């Protein structure tokens, strides 16, 4: 549209039509290019180049003097801890995203149900966990889970239930990390789903009600299909962020006990920086990229397919 608008005056000029046109096109492209140049520079210099450099780093030996090709990766594949970290990261990310989506969906429905006047207030309250910096809220959770002073254990004690080792036992520690992640992330899902719910046209629901659908059928045949795009995008975004998460595990459990809550990011930090083996740390981090790319491709393909179906 803008192209057409721009070309009309140049065509109208007549004699030097062609060169003017070319000049105009070039001008537009250059302007557009210049406008995106800072973005391109930023991404190229501070994201792509370091990423490629870390690829190079991952092929070096520990003291970074020799080239060892896939040596670091082969070493990782033979380690029990590495596979444990892979498994933990995947379970962590998938479980957390599922629960976040579920809770977000349920809460969004409840908020959608109440009269519009009250919705703003509730929405505001429920989004708080996402607004607080994660590092700060993790400190609060750390204190809530403290082995000696846990406020939760205090309540359990009053109910004569045995104290729970929130960060002390491997399985409870995994639960706690997922819990905190869900606490922080569910509000985001709620907001997204609420917006999507609002955008579903009322007529569809009325039509379904007239056809005698109960609430479950309305959900399955009207709500979910209309929300699929949003659900896919939020799930993807959240999967990426959760998979690469560092803050929560680091502050809450530092990967323990006995490495049972390590995820890629924290374990890369542990072997790379704290263990003094930067190439190995880079290798561990790099492992995240293929897994994330595969997930991204699947979901993006799904979105594009549906977008082209609809148009």
């Amino acid at each position, binding site marked *: 549209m803008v192209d057409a*608008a721009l070309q009309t005056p140049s065509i109208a000029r007549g004699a030097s039509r062609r060169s003017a046109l070319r000049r105009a096109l070039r001008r537009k492209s250059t302007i557009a290019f210049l406008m995106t140049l800072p973005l391109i520079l930023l991404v190229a210099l501070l994201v792509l180049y*370091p990423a490629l450099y870390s690829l190079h780093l991952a092929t070096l030996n520990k003291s970074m003097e020799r080239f060892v090709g896939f040596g670091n990766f082969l070493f990782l594949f033979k380690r029990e801890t590495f596979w444990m970290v892979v498994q933990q990261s995947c379970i962590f990310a998938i479980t957390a995203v599922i629960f976040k989506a579920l809770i977000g969906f349920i809460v969004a429905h*409840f908020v959608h149900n109440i009269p519009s006047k009250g919705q703003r207030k509730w929405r505001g309250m429920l989004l708080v966990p996402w*607004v607080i910096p994660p590092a700060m809220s993790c400190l609060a959770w750390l204190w809530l889970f403290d082995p000696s002073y846990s406020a939760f254990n205090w309540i359990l004690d009053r109910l004569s239930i045995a104290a729970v080792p929130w960060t002390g036992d491997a399985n409870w520690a995994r639960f706690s990390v997922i819990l905190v992640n869900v*606490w922080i992330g569910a509000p*985001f899902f709620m*907001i*997204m789903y609420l*917006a999507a719910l609002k955008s579903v046209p009322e007529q569809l629901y009325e039509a379904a009600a007239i056809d005698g659908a109960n609430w479950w059928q309305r959900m399955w045949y009207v709500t979910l299909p209309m929300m699929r795009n949003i659900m896919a995008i939020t799930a993807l975004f959240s999967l990426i962020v959760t998979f690469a998460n560092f803050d929560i595990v680091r502050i809450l459990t530092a990967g323990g006990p006995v490495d049972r809550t390590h995820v890629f990011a924290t374990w890369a930090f542990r072997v790379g920086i704290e263990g003094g083996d930067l190439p190995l740390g880079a290798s561990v981090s790099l492992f995240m990229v293929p897994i994330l790319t595969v997930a991204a491709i699947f979901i993006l393909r799904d979105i594009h397919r549906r977008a082209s179906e609809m148009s």
Partner: protein
Amino acid sequence: MTVASLATDAATARRSRYGSISRDRRWALRWSYFFLTVFAIFFLMPPVYMLITSLKTSQEISAATDPWWVHNPTLGNYIELLTSPTYLAFFRNSALVSVIVVVITMLISVPAAFALSRMRFWGSATLATGVFLTYLIPETLLFIPLFKMFALVNEYTGIQLINRWWVLLLLYPTLTVPFCTWIMIGYFASIPKELDEAALMDGANYRQILTRVFIPVALPGLIAATIFAFTVSWAQFLYPLAFTTSADQLVLPVGIVTSLIKGDVFNWGQIMTGALLGAAPPLIIYAFLMDYYIAGLTAGATKG
């Protein structure tokens, strides 16, 4: 048939005893409020706990008589932190970094989003998706090579990048710009093209189209992107942890975690106070601009 059934429904509704809401609807409402309260308690409990603990002296915390209520409230922790030059330095650094990063982010994202959504040029489609894909490269991967790069810069140009707060001004935009660009693309794409044409008919060039037409119309999106960039910058933990060491260069999240927690002596009253004060700016901004924030997040997604 439809009209008749609608009429019957209306009649039924009119006949119900309590005004215009049917019994089912009322029960649904009650359950909704009940569950919402439960979830609200779940979501708000940690900040409330932070507040309660921040009002306690460390003796009361050690005594552990009642973690959920303060018996001898004291503002001692707040006074100590707000008069501590170290803590105020953290605050100042965080504020400076966040505000400047927001400005930088907007200066980069808005033109880029405009170009990508309106001007079709070679590679614009790939660039638009490619921008999103930068999120696939996590920061834990990048900070090691970045460290070496900055050290090299120091060697060749003498510009000190390690352990200076302004290095964060370079790094944070990598986290904020992609998402803000994506939000803005969504907003800009939804602006009707007739507006462009009208402006062009009036003889406007691109800069004027952007500033006079797009920005005012997409203002909610801009505000949302600004808030997002601010919140993300304020909450950053890994990059400052890796790149800043000296106390006067730290930002708030790292400052609290590393300097208020001293090895084996935890001062939880102060830590909770510090954390609460640290969470305050995003919360306050959010409280005032909540609608823009939510609108921006959701619109960018539903339209993009």
